[in-house]
């Protein structure tokens, strides 16, 4: 198989109320960003567990992006605080596994912050491009069991 030029694969888990709406706002305002992100909508960022994020890295993601509401603005009162705690722990775990913790990024984006979403996507894509592929996949790009 012909080797394609590598470009980062990024998975985004976005909460319905703030970040997903912020991504929609970026669209409505036609703010361009690189097409690397694949967005999966969840109702709250706290729906995401470690398993899903690890699964993403295991099956080929070069970065995982989690987007939630700003502190104090969570649609579900305090779900974003739980997300923050979980992601902080998971980042330490990733470092132990040899995955740069910058590959897991958590950002607060409000429904009005289309510009912030677009800029975040640009900077995340740039950063991962510089870092190169997810080290779990350097061995010929084959994936571990799905």
């Amino acid at each position, binding site marked *: 198989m012909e080797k394609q030029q590598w470009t980062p694969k990024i998975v985004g888990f976005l909460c319905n109320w703030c970040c997903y709406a912020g991504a929609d706002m970026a669209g409505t305002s036609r703010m361009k960003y690189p*097409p690397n992100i694949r967005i999966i909508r969840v109702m709250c960022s706290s729906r995401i567990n470690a398993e899903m994020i690890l699964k*993403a890295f295991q099956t080929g993601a070069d970065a995982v992006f989690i987007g939630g509401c700003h502190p104090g603005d969570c649609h579900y009162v305090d779900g974003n605080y739980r997300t923050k705690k979980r992601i902080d722990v998971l980042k330490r775990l990733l470092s132990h596994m040899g995955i740069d913790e910058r590959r897991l990024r958590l950002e607060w984006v409000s429904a009005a912050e289309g510009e912030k979403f677009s800029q975040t996507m640009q900077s995340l894509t740039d950063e991962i491009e510089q870092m190169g592929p997810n080290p779990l996949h350097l061995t010929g790009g084959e994936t571990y069991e799905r």
Partner: protein
Amino acid sequence: MKVGVYICHCGVNISSTVNIDNVVETIKNVANVAVCKDYQYMCSDPGQEMIKSDIATHGLDRIVVAACSPRMHEPTFRAAVSDAGLNPYCLEMANIREQCSWVHEDKERATEKAISLVKSAVAKASLLEPLESTKIPVTHNALVIGGGIAGIQSALDIANSGYKVYLVEREPSIGGHMAKFDKTFPTLDCAACILTPKMVDVARHPNIELLTYSEVERIDGSVGSFHVTVRERPRYVDMEACTGCGQCASACRLAGRIPSDFDYGLAKRSAIYVPFPQAVPLKYTIDPDRCLMITRGKCGKSPSCVEACDRGAIDFEQAERFHEFDVGAVVVATGYNEFQAKQRPEFGYDRFENVLTGLELERYFSPNGPTGGKLFINGKVPRSVVFVSCVGSRDKRVGNAYCSRVCCMYIAKQAHLIKEKLPDTDVTVMYTDMRAFGKGYEEFYERVQKEGVHYRRGNAAEVYEEDGRLHVRAEDTLLGEPYEVEADLVVLGAGLRPPSSADGIASMLHLSRSSDKFFLEAHPKLRPVDTVIDGVFLAGCAQGPKDIPDSVAQACGAASHVVNLLSKDYIDAEPIIAIVNEDGCVGCRTCEQLCPYEAHAFDEKRGVMTINKALCKGCGSCAAACPSGSISMNHFRNDQIVAQLLEVL
């Protein structure tokens, strides 16, 4: 499993960036896809008809629509799917407009992304399950928290629709801030003339139970059946017996010696009082912090109020009372507090007695105020008055970035009233920007300028005293130069802050608040009176600074939503909630602490967790934390999310 996939062009919004033919050709060969079609506008009637007829002719059991954001048209397509006899939750949308065609320029890569998003949606759709909403019975009563103009309006509207309303106010009288005003901008209506009839209507209304001097202590339950506990503080006066004659207040040993809260301490009252003469209910209240009988257990030989009252209404044995009742809906109309001007010490509010806030000056205008409506301030008629705008508004230093919306106009109104009463007095307004946004406001602002009020753009910097006169130092930002004005009276246009009671209400009802700490509406544009908690609505300044017309309009809106809810015997609860698999649950109770809505209840007998369907809001935080994986989050199950994930990688 037969999945029907529909790709929308959205005119050229999607098709100009995404190659629709490529998407259709690729998706046709994806597992489970029985039909894949594209159309100019899927949301149009023909588009929806296409889905409906395909469901009938091809026997489709899951539908994927790749179009705009589900936040836009998910309800539209759910309705279409449901019309065709399929469960509305058997629909999944792929967002290829807002999150693809509109944000990318490279057509090839945008098409590639669109394909991957559609595949991901197909994978999820294949795992979707039909969901049924549960029926929740509705109690046909409402609770209105706060008896200002917003609460009064909501209570009257709901009560006039034939439903019982409990109106809870923590002060001894309803009326709120509006009862303190003399005139209202821009029409100069007499505030009392338009407010007091409404207050009387509340008191007389057969459907309204008025609980004054009371606070909501606890609220349990959820939409349709909230259980409310209200604590009524003792007035030490029998409400039935008191006629409001006022003999007690005249007789009180402390008469004329206690600063009146209602008048911000500018006037004095007795230890037994009504806040203002038009109070509703017109029943006297004993101030427990001041009354000699209560604070010292002794008042002369015998309390003079008891002697003065022919009706024997005074009762020092009275204790607090608790009222418990059920309601189907709640209106939060807790209003605002005025910004504490001492937080801007440079204006000398604490140091100079002739520096007042807007609300304090309002009491001087009022015929029932400390001077009977005469502008006689600290023994003098002011010959020069300076208004300072944006005190505590648009000021990040005190943590208030927002505009309080009413100050520009109340300053204009007060400037007018001063000119009307004292035509020779100089009035200067130091403003940041003039915001005269409402109906008739700009015209009023113009009128006030014509009356001789000087408007100078720029912030005041400091108020200081020299030779017994106040001096205000400011910068004229249009001329770009500093200047000073001498003043007999400086009025600080203090802004609006969320009330201190908001904390308790927020935690009791699990309401979200915006960064300014006002209550957060469910959607800033389309659901401005709803909250994210079903059955709880917002009215007036509780949601953000507002003038009277806007407060009344929102109160009417909140009431109409309440009536809408109460008119039903049952409501459908959203089925996107967490479900416990009781066979897997080990009873560790990890989830219980995570739920912000207390929807989890542990069944001690069976050793498993249960989730209240009416309380769960479907965030899925518990499902993510369950160590045994026994909580399944409907419509966002682990397997559904993972299936989506594997398709995009």
